[in-house]
């Protein structure tokens, strides 16, 4: 790892000011992706602006319609939250299946979403529930947030402060884990929401995306059977030594069925 200047601002405003004053600074949240990347020298930021001291970025608030999670809330806290378990049990399951316990004690929801790793779990829930991503500048709808491989709608000098999930009637998440890394080869988050059924897929494409054909079928009949014959196109899906694009396309269907079966 190359050396850098470390900053620990106490407010979002200070964090942005500090970041804007650096030549090639990066925001540090949990560091579960950024630090390994820096160790491999795939990233060598001039500065790290650590958000850990900003208390306002942590915590979970639920009301009758939504669950709002501060960007610096760690996966373990989302998983263990009584509010999340009650309002959106599938989100608790998802958060409890990221990485391993030690990673869940450090990794944050904001970091995971901002990174838009093609195999990260959270993007499936953000898309599947139609969440709203709040930054220091604006609110961004899930459908216009993920732009591609490690690419999002975030602009330079923009930082996620919270993610708000609408509480669905029911939702389920199922993932097929890469057996060594535990990342999602494919993960599917299915939700029946006030604005219709949504199917969010991670792991299969360059970034999380929706499967319209499944959403339409599930809107008519919310059952695994309703989607079992839907073929997911493999064009543009990820392919690597762990699985071809066709294999991943097949997994999307299998995981979607399991997610529907698990929905509550």
């Amino acid at each position, binding site marked *: *790892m*190359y*050396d*850098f*200047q*470390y900053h*620990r601002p106490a407010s979002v405003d200070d964090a942005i000011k500090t970041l804007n004053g650096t030549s090639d600074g990066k925001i*540090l949240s949990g*560091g*579960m992706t950024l*630090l*390994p990347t*820096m*160790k491999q020298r795939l990233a060598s930021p001039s500065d*790290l602006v*650590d958000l*850990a001291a900003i208390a306002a970025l942590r915590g979970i608030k639920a009301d009758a319609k939504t669950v709002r999670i501060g960007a610096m809330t760690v996966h*373990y806290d989302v998983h263990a939250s009584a509010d999340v378990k009650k309002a959106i049990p599938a989100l608790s399951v998802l958060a409890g299946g990221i*990485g*391993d*316990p*030690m*990673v869940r*004690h*450090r990794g944050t929801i904001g970091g995971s979403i901002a990174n838009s790793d093609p195999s990260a779990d959270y993007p499936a829930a953000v898309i599947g529930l139609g969440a709203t991503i709040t930054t220091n500048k604006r609110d961004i709808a899930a459908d216009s947030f993920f732009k591609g491989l490690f690419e999002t709608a975030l602009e330079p000098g923009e930082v996620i402060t919270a993610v708000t999930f609408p509480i669905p009637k029911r939702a389920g998440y199922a993932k097929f884990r890469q057996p060594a890394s*535990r990342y999602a080869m494919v993960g599917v988050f299915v939700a029946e929401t006030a604005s219709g059924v949504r199917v969010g897929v991670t792991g299969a494409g360059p970034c999380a995306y929706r499967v319209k054909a499944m959403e339409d079928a599930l809107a008519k009949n919310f059952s695994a059977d309703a989607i079992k014959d839907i073929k997911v196109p493999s064009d543009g899906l990820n392919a690597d030594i762990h699985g071809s694009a066709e294999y991943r396309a097949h997994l999307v269907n299998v995981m979607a069925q399991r997610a529907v079966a698990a929905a509550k």
Partner: protein
Amino acid sequence: MPQVSMTVNGKAASIAVEARTLLVEYLRDHMRLTGTHVGCDTTQCGACTVHIDGKAVKSCTILAVQCEGAKVTTIEGLAQGDKLHPMQESFKEHHGLQCGFCTPGMVMAGIDIRRRHPNASEETVRHELEGNICRCTGYHNIVKAIMHAKM
């Protein structure tokens, strides 16, 4: 260089280190607490597991500066004099180690598992150990040791 202060095993430490210094380097190279091991350096094996403010984390994947003001516990901080921690006692009792390389991480992770799941079943322990790798593959007795530790 930033002056980084934290409490390690109950004692105050304050050392000037480069910002890029990992917690495990702070502990091993600067404090000579070499009980915490580095197996992979890539967040996979868990040999470097320590507790920060009571929670298990991988010390190879956190900067020392991020631990400013934190309470860190390493494997060296568990025993009270000659009296082993119940988790250490249980590893001894159930022969939960072979070469011993993964053991500090397994013990620290084991304590954290039992903190979160006081009556953890075998299935829970196996599942919760997914971030700790034993290259001697001695999982069977490690799981037993964690389950039966008299916490």
